[in-house]
C-alpha cells in the first residue's frame, strides 16, 4: 500500500533528460506527491493478471461501439479530395465550373482558402495522391462524383521515386537543399569495426531488401467536425486525442480550450493515426464555413496511397565472429526512401541493441522521394532491421557450422550497449529456451524427415529470430478516479482504445488498487473534455505510461474512502482495508460496502488524482523475446505455408494474459503478411502506386493462419514502474518475418533475401 507519512508531501517539477524515440531530450517532469509501493513479482493480486473479458467485447459484437465513420448527425455534409495524378509538377489551374453548379455541392476548398499551418492543397505537387483541393457536398456520392468531374492543368516536372534517383535529382520538394534527411547519411558507431573484422575468424556479407508495406486498418482515417459558436468538436479515428486537439488548435489558430476531440472507438491504427491530417482540417474548415457538421472519411484508395507506410529498405550487412561464434563486428549499410516526408524509423537501431558486440557501425541513407510520406508502422525500423540482421545471423551460423539458435544464445546482450547501462531485466535466454522447447527445436531434423516422406514435393524448415524494443513508457500521464454515490467507480483519463484493450486494462488496475469489484469500475476515455492528459497510444507504452497513473489515482481515492469510512465505522483509517467493494475493519467481521459509505456522503465526492512519475535513471527498459517458425515450401509452385509460430516474450507483468495474447497474435499475423505477401508496388517510371486496394495489396486472410503458440514469461518488472508492466504490441511483430525467412532458407537450402517471399521469388531462388 501507498506510503505517505509525516508532513503532507507535495508534487515537484524537475528538469531531467528523457529518452524520446532513441534520442535524449531535456524535459520537465513531474515527481508525484507519492508513489505507491511497487507490485513485485510475488504481489498477491486479484484483478491484475486475470483473464478478464474485454469490457466492450459484446458491444463490439453488435457493431455499435461508436466509430467515427458511423457517426450520424443532422445535416451531415461529406468531403472528398481531389488528388494529384502525377508524382511532381505545378498545378496551374483547376476547372470547377461543372462541379460548383451541381446542386448537391456545397463548397470547395483550395490552397488560398486554408490557413497556412494546415499545409493543405499546395500547388507544388510532390507525389501521386497528394490532396490538391476538397469538395464538400450534401451526400458522400455527390462529393465523390464532384472530384471526378474536376479538371486539372498541371505542368509536370521530373520526379525521383528511388533513393538512387533522389541522390542525383534536384530537390523533390520545395525547401530542401538536397534530398537526404537532415542533409546527410546517419552514421552511428561504437568500437572499431575494422579491428573487429580483422579479428574475426569468419565473416559473412548479405544484401537484403524489405518492401514498402501499408497499415491497411479496416476503418479508414476519418473525422467529423461540428462548431458551436467558437467551439469545435471533432470526432476522430485516432491514436491520440490530445495530439489531434493540439494539432487542430495550432493549425486553426484557436485556443485549446475551444477544441474538444472525441474517439469513442476506432477501427485500427498501427501507427498511421497519430496526428490530425488533411481529413481533420478539411472537416473542421468546411464545418465552420458551412455552419453544419461535416464528415471526411478517406476512401480506400486514398487510405492505401496517402495515410502512411512502412518504407522499403535495402540493407547490406557484414558480420564477423570468432570460431566459437562470438560476434566481433556488425556493419550495416542501408538506404531507405522515406517518401516526401517522414523521420528516421531506421533499420540501424536494432543492430546496436540485439546482440552483444563491441564493434558496431551503421550507415543509413534516408532519402526524400516523390511518393507519399511514411508513418510509424508497428516497430518502425526494428521490424525492417531485424530482417537484415537475422538473415545475416543465419548465414553466419551456416558459415560457422553452428546451430543458429546456439549462435544467438552465445551473443545475448546482457546490458544496454548503446547507453552502456544495465537493463531492468533481460530474460531473452529464457525466451529462447522456452520457445525451443515448444517448437521442438532439438528434434527438428526428425520432424523434417517425417514430413518430407509424406509430401516429397514440399520442404519443411524451421527458423528462429529475436527482438528487443524499448517499452518503458514514461511521463506525463494523468488519471482521476472517482467514486459515484452508488459506490461504482469511474477512471477518467485522456487515452483511447485502439482495440488493444486499454479500457479493460485500466479498469483492472483501478479495481485492484481500490479493492473493488471489476464490474463496478469503468474507464471513461477517448474525450479531451473529460479525461486529463494521456499520451498517444504508440510505442507500446500505454500500459507502462498510464497504468501507474491510474493505480496512483485509485490509491489516492481509496485513501480518501478509508478516511471517510473511518468515522462511520468509529475506527481509525489504518484499521481499515478494502476487499471486493467493501471497506472492512481488520480482524473483525464489520464492514460496509463502498456504496454504503458513498451513500452516506451524498455528493461529497471521493476522488483521487494520479500522475506518472519519472522512469528510473541510468537503466534501460526493454521487452525482449524470441519467435520460432515452422514452414512448408512447395518446390513446384513456390508457395510458402507457415504452419506454426511459437512466440515467447518477456514483457514484465502481464495485466491481462488474454488481451496480451491477442496483441501477440496480431503482431505475428502482420509480420506474416510482411514476410509473405505485402508489398506496395510502384511504377518506377511514373511514381504511380499500382496496388491501392485490399485485393491487389494482400494482407493475410484467415486461410493463411498458422498455429500460433504465444507465451509470456511469468514475472514483473517493479524497477521499471510500480505496476511492473512493459509493452508488447510492437515487440510482437519484430521477429516474425525474419523467423519465417530463416525457416524458408532452412527448408530450401538456399536463401531468399528479398521480402515478401512470393512464389516467384522462391522459384527463382531454387537451383534449376
Amino acid at each position, binding site marked *: 500500500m501507498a506510503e505517505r507519512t509525516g508532513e503532507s508531501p507535495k508534487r515537484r517539477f524537475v528538469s531531467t533528460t528523457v529518452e524520446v524515440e532513441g534520442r535524449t531530450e531535456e524535459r520537465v517532469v513531474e515527481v508525484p506527491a507519492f508513489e505507491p509501493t511497487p507490485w513485485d513479482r510475488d504481489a498477491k493480486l486479484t484483478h491484475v493478471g486475470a483473464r478478464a473479458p474485454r469490457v466492450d467485447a459484446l458491444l463490439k459484437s453488435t*457493431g455499435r*461501439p461508436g466509430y467515427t465513420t458511423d457517426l450520424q448527425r443532422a445535416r451531415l455534409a461529406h468531403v472528398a479530395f481531389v488528388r494529384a495524378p502525377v508524382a511532381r509538377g505545378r498545378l496551374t489551374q483547376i476547372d470547377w465550373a461543372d462541379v460548383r453548379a451541381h446542386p448537391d455541392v456545397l463548397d470547395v476548398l483550395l490552397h488560398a482558402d486554408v490557413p497556412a499551418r494546415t499545409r493543405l492543397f499546395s500547388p507544388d505537387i510532390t507525389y501521386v495522391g497528394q490532396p490538391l483541393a476538397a469538395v464538400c457536398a450534401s451526400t458522400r456520392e455527390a462529393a465523390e462524383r464532384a472530384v471526378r468531374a474536376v479538371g486539372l492543368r498541371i505542368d509536370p516536372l521530373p520526379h525521383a521515386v528511388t533513393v538512387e534517383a533522389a541522390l542525383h535529382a534536384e530537390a523533390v520538394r520545395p525547401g530542401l537543399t538536397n534530398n537526404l534527411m537532415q542533409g546527410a547519411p546517419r552514421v552511428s558507431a561504437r568500437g572499431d569495426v575494422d579491428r573487429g573484422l580483422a579479428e574475426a575468424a569468419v565473416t559473412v556479407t548479405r544484401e537484403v531488401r524489405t518492401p514498402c508495406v501499408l497499415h491497411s486498418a479496416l476503418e479508414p482515417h476519418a473525422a467529423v467536425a461540428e462548431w458551436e459558436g467558437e467551439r469545435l468538436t471533432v470526432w476522430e479515428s485516432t491514436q491520440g486525442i490530445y495530439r489531434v486537439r493540439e494539432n487542430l488548435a495550432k493549425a486553426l489558430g484557436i485556443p485549446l480550450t475551444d477544441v474538444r476531440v472525441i474517439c469513442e472507438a476506432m477501427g*485500427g491504427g498501427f501507427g498511421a493515426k497519430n496526428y490530425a491530417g488533411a481529413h481533420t482540417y478539411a472537416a473542421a474548415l468546411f464545418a465552420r464555413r458551412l455552419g453544419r457538421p461535416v464528415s471526411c472519411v478517406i476512401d*480506400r484508395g486514398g487510405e492505401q496511397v496517402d495515410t502512411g507506410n512502412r518504407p522499403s529498405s535495402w540493407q547490406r550487412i557484414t558480420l564477423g565472429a570468432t570460431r566459437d561464434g562470438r560476434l566481433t563486428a556488425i556493419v550495416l549499410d542501408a538506404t531507405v526512401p522515406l517518401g516526401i516526408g517522414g523521420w528516421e524509423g531506421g533499420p540501424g537501431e536494432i543492430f546496436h541493441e540485439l546482440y552483444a558486440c563491441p564493434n558496431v557501425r551503421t550507415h543509413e541513407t534516408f532519402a526524400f522521394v516523390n511518393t507519399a510520406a511514411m508513418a510509424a508502422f508497428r516497430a518502425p525500423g526494428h521490424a525492417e532491421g531485424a530482417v537484415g540482421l537475422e538473415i545475416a545471423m543465419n548465414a553466419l551460423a551456416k558459415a560457422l557450422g553452428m546451430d543458429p539458435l546456439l549462435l544467438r544464445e552465445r551473443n545475448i546482450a546482457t546490458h544496454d550497449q548503446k547507453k552502456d547501462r544495465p537493463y531492468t531485466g533481460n530474460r531473452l535466454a529464457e525466451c529462447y529456451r522456452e520457445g525451443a522447447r515448444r517448437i521442438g527445436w532439438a528434434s527438428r531434423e526428425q520432424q523434417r524427415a517425417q514430413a518430407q516422406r509424406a509430401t516429397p514435393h514440399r520442404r519443411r524448415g524451421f527458423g528462429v529470430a529475436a527482438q528487443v524494443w524499448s517499452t518503458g513508457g514514461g511521463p506525463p500521464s494523468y488519471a482521476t478516479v472517482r467514486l459515484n454515490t452508488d459506490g461504482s467507480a469511474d477512471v477518467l483519463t485522456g487515452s483511447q482504445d485502439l*482495440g488493444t484493450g486499454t479500457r479493460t486494462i485500466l479498469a483492472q488496475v483501478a479495481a485492484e488498487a481500490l479493492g473493488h469489484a471489476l464490474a463496478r469500475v469503468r474507464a471513461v476515455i477517448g474525450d479531451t473534455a473529460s479525461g486529463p492528459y494521456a499520451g498517444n497510444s504508440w510505442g507500446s507504452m500505454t500500459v507502462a505510461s498510464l497504468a501507474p497513473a491510474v493505480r496512483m489515482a485509485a490509491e489516492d481515492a481509496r485513501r480518501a474512502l478509508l478516511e471517510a469510512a473511518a468515522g462511520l465505522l468509529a475506527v481509525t483509517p489504518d484499521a481499515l482495508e478494502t476487499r471486493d467493494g467493501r471497506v472492512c475493519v481488520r480482524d473483525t467481521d464489520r464492514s460496509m460496502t463502498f456504496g454504503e459509505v458513498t451513500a452516506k456522503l451524498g455528493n461529497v465526492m471521493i476522488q483521487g488524482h494520479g500522475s506518472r512519475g519519472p522512469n528510473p535513471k541510468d537503466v534501460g527498459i526493454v521487452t525482449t523475446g524470441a519467435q520460432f517458425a515452422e514452414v512448408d515450401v512447395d518446390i513446384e509452385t513456390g508457395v510458402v505455408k507457415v504452419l506454426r509460430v511459437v512466440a515467447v516474450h518477456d514483457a514484465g507483468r502481464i495485466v491481462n494474459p488474454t488481451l496480451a*495474447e*491477442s496483441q501477440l497474435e496480431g*503482431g505475428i499475423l502482420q509480420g506474416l503478411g510482411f514476410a509473405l505477401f505485402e508489398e506496395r508496388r510502384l511504377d518506377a517510371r511514373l511514381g504511380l502506386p499500382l496496388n491501392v486496394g485490399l485485393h491487389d495489396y494482400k494482407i493475410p486472410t484467415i486461410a493463411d493462419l498458422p498455429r500460433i503458440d504465444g507465451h509470456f514469461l511469468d514475472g514483473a518488472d517493479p524497477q521499471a514502474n510500480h505496476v511492473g508492466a512493459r509493452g508488447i504490441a510492437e515487440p510482437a511483430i519484430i521477429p516474425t518475418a525474419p523467423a519465417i525467412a530463416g525457416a524458408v532458407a532452412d527448408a530450401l537450402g538456399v536463401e531468399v533475401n528479398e521480402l515478401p517471399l512470393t512464389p516467384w521469388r522462391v522459384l527463382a531462388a531454387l537451383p534449376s
Partner: protein
Amino acid sequence: MLPPLVQLTVNGRPLAVAAPADATLLDLLRDTLALTGTKRACDRGECGACTVVRDGRPIYACLTLAHACTGHEIRSIESLGSADAPHALQSAFAAEDAAQCGFCTPGQLMAAAALLATNPDPSEDEVIAAMSGNLCRCGTYPKIVRAVRRAAATLRHADPAGPERAHG
C-alpha cells in the same frame, strides 16, 4: 423525380425504401436506414466488413445493388442479438476475445451466422473456408476460429432441432 422504391425485408421488417438506381445495399442500410452496424471499410468488395445475409447466404452489401434486393430478405448485424441478449456467436466472440478493434467484427459474425445456418458442426477447415472472405487487420483469426466452433457447439447443445431457428 423521386427515386424508385426497393421493396425488401430487413431484419424481419418489410420495407419500401426510395433508392437511386446506383445505390448499393450498403448505402441503403447505412445511409437511409441508419443501420451502421454494417461497416464500410473498402466499398469495393475486398474486405468483407459489409457482409450481410441475403436469403440465408452471406453477401457483400457494398457490391450488391439495392434494387437487386427487391423481394429478398436481408439480415444485418442488428438482427443477430444485442449486448443484453446476445446471440451465441456474439457471446462466443466475446468469450474468446475475437474482436480487437471490432471494426470487421459485424461482417465476421454475419459470415459465421450464415455458415452455422447450413452447417451446425463445421470443422476448423470449414470455418476457415467460410470466413476467408472477411479480412481482419488486428489479427483475431485464431480467436475467430475458436469462437465460431464454440458457438456451434453451444447452438447444437441448446437447440437440437438445428441452428436455423436459433439464428432466425
